[in-house]
């Protein structure tokens, strides 16, 4: 029989898989939209940027003159491109989805930040990526929001769903659930549901190391990347110590670790000043706090904020340990929340709350 902790671990594992699938979906749509099926290679001159920082105009309906960070920017040529945003953790309740769907209208603007001399393009399509299990609800809701006048797109807008299917081979499929694209040929392909070989996506050298995008990953996933990142950056002396005594204490500053993580797992492309800060320092700091709770790292001096000493030693099934630890914390938080709500519903007994 499953315990509440088992269920929490399973839920957290699902969240990790959902995050990984979303990154794969972004890689898949980037691959598909720039793929030249005649040449069987990416179209020459196309550029892909994950999480590029763009600027909206005064006329933006949602976010005037602000910096926005679409999950994916595909520059097809000097005149056109595609902006894609992944929304995977969408609620099953329409009202809760509403604001997240309306938000995507901020990309329906003459955005600045494209890889052209003027940093603008004549036209671009906007793609909303959702998981297959939500695509019909989202498509229906977009239609309703459009009818009521709350949702309006002047540019081509498409809802594209993704899913993983296995039939001998594992494929990542993309399919058009609503709307249209500027590129009619690609639109037609997506209408037919496009299967992309998972191995091809996973092994594509251009995107193979991309693990993080603009949304925070579940902490166990980030912890796993951090332990790998630290392992890859040991000095020869640290490695010798590890070989001699079986462990080595590695002092690491969060800002340095954040830079390593960005280099190893963040979006890597020619982005210059428009490069996104992925991961931000706060994600890494939070994950390091979890390592401290687990006893894998220490904060040697509370005044030296952001300095940790990570103990590098052989660990068995690290990801499972991260999952269990984070699920335990999540469970405790939820239990406290439920308890607090119970007290609120019993005002006559409120004086007993702290006893």
């Amino acid at each position, binding site marked *: 029989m499953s315990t509440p902790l088992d269920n929490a671990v399973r839920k957290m594992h699902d969240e990790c898989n959902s995050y990984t699938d979303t990154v794969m979906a972004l890689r898949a749509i980037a691959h598909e939209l720039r793929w030249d099926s005649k040449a069987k290679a990416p179209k020459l001159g196309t550029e892909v940027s994950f999480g590029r920082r763009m600027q909206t105009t005064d006329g933006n309906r949602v976010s005037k003159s602000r910096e926005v960070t679409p999950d994916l920017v595909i520059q097809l040529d000097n005149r056109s491109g595609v902006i894609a945003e992944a929304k995977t953790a969408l609620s099953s309740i329409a009202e809760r989805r509403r604001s997240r769907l309306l938000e995507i209208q901020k990309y329906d603007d003459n955005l600045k930040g494209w890889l052209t001399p003027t940093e603008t393009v004549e036209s671009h399509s906007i793609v909303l990526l959702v998981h297959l299990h939500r695509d019909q609800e989202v498509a229906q809701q977009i239609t309703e929001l459009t009818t009521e006048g709350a949702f309006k797109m002047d540019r081509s807008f498409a809802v594209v769903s993704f899913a993983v299917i*296995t039939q*001998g081979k594992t494929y990542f499929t993309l399919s058009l659930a609503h709307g249209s694209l500027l590129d009619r040929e690609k639109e037609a392909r997506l209408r037919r549901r496009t299967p992309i070989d998972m*191995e091809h996506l996973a092994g594509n050298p251009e995107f193979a*190391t991309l693990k993080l995008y603009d949304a925070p990953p579940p902490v166990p996933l980030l912890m*796993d990347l951090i332990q790998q990142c630290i392992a*890859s950056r040991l000095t020869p002396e640290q490695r010798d110590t590890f070989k001699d005594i079986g462990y080595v204490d590695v002092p690491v500053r969060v800002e340095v670790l954040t830079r390593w993580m960005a280099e190893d797992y963040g979006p890597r492309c020619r982005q210059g000043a428009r490069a996104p800060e992925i991961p931000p320092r706060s994600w890494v700091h939070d994950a390091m706090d979890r390592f401290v709770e687990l006893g894998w790292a220490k904060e040697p001096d509370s005044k030296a904020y952001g300095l940790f000493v990570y103990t590098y030693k052989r660990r068995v099934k*690290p990801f*499972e340990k991260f999952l269990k630890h984070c699920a335990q914390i999540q469970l405790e938080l939820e239990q406290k929340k439920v308890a607090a709500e119970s007290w609120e519903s019993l005002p006559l007994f409120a004086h007993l709350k702290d006893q």
Partner: protein
Amino acid sequence: MLHRFLAPDLVRIYLQTKLYAKSFAGISRRMNRGSLRVMEYVSKGLIDDSDAKRGVQTSIVHTDMAQAELFEVLSAQRKWLSSCVVVTRGGEPMSGRIMRDCTFTCDRNIAGFFGSIVQEVAKTALVAKDFYDGRSSTTSGTGLVRPLRITYARRVFEDTREAPRLIKVLDDWRESAMSLFNASPYVHAGLLDYSDGSTYDLWVASSDSVLIVPKTVATADSISSLCDHICNRFEEGEVLEA
């Protein structure tokens, strides 16, 4: 006494059956007189019994066969080689054992055995080393990783028991840790080799291959060891460019 072909500070390379065959064929061609014969070999193969808990069995065969015949036998039996004892017959007498991990022992004429046999095998092993070099994002020279693939002649993973067996095998890989993200319907795991900080993503997303994607650091020693571990403990396949 056990000897290693390659200096200890060099990369450890493992001989796949194909490399043994290539080396021995080269040695036979270069022999002026006599022939190279196999007197004993240790091979591994799959256990074809659904009740078996172990996936792989080891056999030791004492024989006397021409080197080329050994590879025909192994191929027909779908087995792979762990080590073999070879002798020369009809020419300069020498004998010794060549192990899969590029170590050897010699019981007759070490100078001749080293010069004529070991060095020839080492040449082939060093070519294999080049294949494993420069695959991580920091060593490829382009900033991009160079994934590789272990391909099988049959659809190994159509049998649903095989992916869990591979996961178990990966769990036993030297000083390493495996993070299993997904076990079904496809396999996605992260591997960290503590001995030198090499890291990988491993995918099984088709029925006949294992994809290995090196990350920031992946030394030739580590990749070679990982591929050999899979080939020797799970099933020997062909290691190819992905």
